[in-house]
């Protein structure tokens, strides 16, 4: 009955609006309850799945991301932080989706491009560059941040082409291994390039990195809002992230739905036949590599500005695997899948496991008894946040067994998986 009602747009819209309003109200009432915030996130998911006509759906999404989320973020700054992190990883996952999902080039060193982008702004947006050039010309004015978004795109795309040229003749596993190595090389370089010329300041990292100025600050002052209040800046970062995510989604969609996307798909299906039909293999693969890398570059620039401090620890192999896990979980080659995968993994990481750890700790400290067992005796090693990777692994294994195409698979991926194996 309920499902039947949900098929009707009016009821579905009503339900979604109700859910969003209720959960938003709930969070405003008790800002510290992670469970309520998660319900809010779940309502966004319901919004995505509900059968609502295109127009109202777009409007609701805009209101949710543009009004409700900022409101909740002002109430509890940690929620804003989560939203920004989710956005950053969504953009990364969408970038990797071009390489792995559309062109099916397994890239295990994707985080290297992220690092390249991050370091390009970190070096010039902080006093670090003075170590190389002498004097005190640096840091550059924070306004340069916007230029560096493009520089990050360019440098990362260049790194992508540089890596791609020699290795794209390799297939599958070999390519994966080389990209894995490349990812490590970049990290090790970042770790060691403090000698002989101090480029990256090694493991100590670079700080303070300039942050983008609020270019509409006078406007805010005119309407009586203090732009330097610590509520405004996270909102501003959030808007920037949202903008980057929007551009990434647009580029993903337009690439997929063009001769370029068709050529990538053909390469996935049958490389030899694709080339015989006039698709230049190496060039198309390089294009995929460069496109994917350029997003990581732009996100990297934003990441370094957001963090103010970066060091090589942020760019480990596990990060590459994490982003890859996001798109596998969501559904390879699928844009909604990549977004959902990134959101789920990031939220699981930042919120669920951490929240669970905190809760367990509280119980332990309070000495709560469960089934006659005093939780105070619980070993301290048992902390869910520490088992993050294990829980990931478990989720991925279960996914591969029960839903190998991912949560929101691309239509073509489903087709490929349905195809009976060649005898």
């Amino acid at each position, binding site marked *: 009955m309920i499902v039947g009602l949900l098929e009707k747009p009016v009821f579905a819209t009503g339900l979604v609006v109700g859910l969003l309003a209720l959960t938003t109200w709930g969070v405003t009432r008790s800002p510290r309850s992670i469970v309520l915030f998660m319900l809010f996130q779940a309502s966004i998911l319901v919004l995505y799945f509900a059968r609502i006509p295109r127009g109202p759906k777009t409007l609701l999404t805009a209101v949710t991301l543009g009004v409700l989320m900022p409101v909740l973020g002002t109430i509890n700054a940690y929620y804003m932080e989560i939203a920004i992190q989710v956005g950053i990883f969504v953009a990364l996952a969408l970038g990797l989706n071009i390489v792995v999902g559309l062109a099916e080039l397994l890239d295990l060193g994707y985080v290297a491009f992220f690092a390249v982008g991050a370091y390009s702004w970190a070096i010039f947006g902080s006093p670090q560059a003075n170590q190389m050039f002498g004097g005190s010309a640096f840091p550059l004015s924070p306004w340069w941040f916007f230029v560096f978004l493009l520089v990050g795109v360019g440098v990362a795309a260049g790194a992508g082409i540089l890596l791609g040229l020699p290795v794209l003749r390799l297939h599958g596993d070999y390519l994966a291994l080389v990209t894995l190595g490349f990812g490590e090389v970049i990290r090790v370089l970042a770790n060691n390039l403090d000698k002989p010329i101090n480029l990256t300041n090694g493991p100590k990292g670079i700080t303070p990195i300039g942050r983008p100025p609020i270019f509409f600050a006078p406007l805010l002052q005119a309407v009586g809002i203090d732009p330097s209040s610590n509520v405004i800046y996270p909102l501003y970062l959030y808007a920037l992230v949202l903008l980057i995510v929007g551009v990434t989604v647009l*580029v993903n969609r*337009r*690439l997929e739905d*063009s*001769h*370029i996307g*068709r*050529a990538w*798909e*053909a390469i996935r*299906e*049958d490389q*030899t*036949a*694709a*080339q*015989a*039909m*006039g*698709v*230049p*293999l190496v060039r198309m693969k390089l*294009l995929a590599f460069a496109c994917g890398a350029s997003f990581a570059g732009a996100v990297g620039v934003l990441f370094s500005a957001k963090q103010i401090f970066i060091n090589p620890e942020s760019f480990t192999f596990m990060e590459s695997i994490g982003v890859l896990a996001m798109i596998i979980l969501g559904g390879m080659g699928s844009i909604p899948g990549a977004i959902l995968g990134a959101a789920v993994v990031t939220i699981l990481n930042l919120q669920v496991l951490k929240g669970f750890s905190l809760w367990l700790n509280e119980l332990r400290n309070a000495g709560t008894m469960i089934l006659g067992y005093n939780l105070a005796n619980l070993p301290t090693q048992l902390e869910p946040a520490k088992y993050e990777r294990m829980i990931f692994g478990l989720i991925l294994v279960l996914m591969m067994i029960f839903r190998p195409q991912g949560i929101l698979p691309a239509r*073509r991926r489903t*087709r*490929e998986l349905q*195809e009976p194996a060649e005898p």
Partner: protein
Amino acid sequence: MAALLEARGVTKRFGGLIALNKVDFILEEGRIASIIGPNGAGKTTFFNVFTGLYVPEEGTVSFRGAPLLGLRSDQITALGVCRTFQNIRLFRNMTAVENVLVGMHARVGAGLWSALSRNRRFKTEERALWARAAELLDTVGLRGRANEIARNLPYGDQRRLEIGRALASRPALLLLDEPTAGMTQGEARDLMALLRRLIADLGLTILLIEHNMRVVMEVSDHVTVLDYGEKIAEGRAVEVQRDPRVIEAYLGRRKWTPAAGDGRA
């Protein structure tokens, strides 16, 4: 008539096996020519040399007087040589129309920027591509199957779709590797009628590898016979058919023994 495709002294070895041995071959424009020969004669190897999949150890290949050797297969396709495969190699999980659209890749003018900005040029071109794809599907007799997934098409339709996909690159020379394999006699006849139409309408030149002798004899202007990597005969279909060396290659040498030969038991 001018030679469209010309091979001189082509030798291709795989280890100790000589797949092609100093083969000369000339194909004139506007013709349907066939390459025949027993299994393992080197026919498909010859095709692969033409389309850049193999590089021969010796010899030269030229298309319209320009050398082909050393070019990649996508460059050769851009020059105007396109092929089908013996064991159908469609993009199996793409729809029929998508297959044809990929075939047009070499003729697409729009670049990355056009695709991203969706400017007018991109939109006009994309519309034109889809219209021509529909037309091509029509030509090869797949009207109404545009949105079917390639692997779900019946066998004969898959062969036809592969021809449509190859035609999409606007080739001057179409290489068909056993296009009637697995078809009924009726389907094969229809296909041959289609090929003749293509030659008349598009000014194509077609080179076939074929096992179906009836098709070969009916349709070809010129037949080349390969056996163990050597060209053993060539000429008009009827001539080749009577050539004793060809008969020998196909049926084996008759063992002549005096006892059987003179009738005394």
